[in-house]
């Protein structure tokens, strides 16, 4: 039997192939977007405000895994590294470490007085104090600005590993009955 394909058959075949490809891309895009919004995503870190934890040398940018499960209950601990929208420009995102949670008292060496972190807010600082724009300039910021918590460094391979929660001696005091998670 001989099959003769007309010009129309060929055009229909190409169109349905294109449609199939478009549908597949669309589906993959939807799934990828959902996973990245609700579960975890990978972001690149720019700047040296979190040295030496991220970008210890200025030549490469680290890639980190950001988990979004924390956005369900907004329960964070001191020392968590989080990604948040900048309070002065909603299009920018910053990565810093949580130093104070609601109710904590914060005092810095160059300030004479202490400041209480208001309800629903938190205090962030970069590990590299000299080159970090953080709560020491813009004050405590609402927890609602947080977009995720950094759990692991995924690139470069020699620095792959979990991001540890480092708590130093600050804040001055925190609420004793606040539960710490993980």
């Amino acid at each position, binding site marked *: 039997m001989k099959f003769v394909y007309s010009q129309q058959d060929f055009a229909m075949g190409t169109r349905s192939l294109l449609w199939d490809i478009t549908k597949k891309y669309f589906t993959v895009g939807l799934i990828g977007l*959902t996973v990245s919004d609700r579960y975890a995503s990978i972001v690149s870190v720019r700047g040296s405000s979190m040295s030496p934890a991220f970008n210890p040398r200025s030549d490469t940018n680290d890639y980190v895994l950001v988990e979004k499960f924390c956005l369900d209950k*907004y329960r964070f601990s001191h020392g968590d590294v989080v990604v948040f929208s*900048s309070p*002065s420009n*909603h299009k920018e995102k910053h990565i810093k470490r949580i130093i104070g949670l609601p109710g904590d008292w914060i005092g810095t060496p160059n300030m004479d007085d202490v400041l209480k972190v208001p309800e629903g807010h938190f205090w962030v600082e970069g590990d590299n104090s000299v080159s970090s724009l953080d709560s020491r300039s813009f004050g405590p910021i609402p*927890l609602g600005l947080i977009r995720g918590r950094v759990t692991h460094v995924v690139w470069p391979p020699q620095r792959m590993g979990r991001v540890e929660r480092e708590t130093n001696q600050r804040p001055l005091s925190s609420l004793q009955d606040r539960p710490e998670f993980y």
Partner: protein
Amino acid sequence: MNLFGNAVPWRSIAREALDRTAIVAKFLCLLHVTNTYVCTPTLVYGPSMLPTLNLTGDVLLAERVSHRLGKVGPGDVVLVRSPVDPRKSLTKRVVAMGGDEVTFVVDPRNSERVRTIVVPRGHVWIQGDNIYASSDSRQFGPVPYGLIEGKMLCRVWPLDGFGSLNH
């Protein structure tokens, strides 16, 4: 009739179950993307936006495109994540944007005292339409623009109030 023979087609049942699950998963992803990036219905209740919104609850359609493009301005009713409790969202009206001066009655129930504040860059000043029963920027200060989650488009329920929010 033995269960583990070829009387029951386990493989095709498993494949069909997997297909159906995949369809449900894809639908849920579509729902998530639509709710987060296009528009979402929200249930709003409370006295702070009277008379624009009812006390007992309205379902409003919130569009989630304008705030990403920076198109939210004074007079818009917006969905905002609460700066006091991040697990809650508020519905208030934007009164002033960053850089504007806002004059407001601090506590209208008890005194006529007025204050004027300049809203910092990147922040907005939100107030409920019912200033006698609203906890808003007059109590917790200007909120960062990044907390805005959507702009209210129209009322969907109750049906007799269907349509635009301006009365």
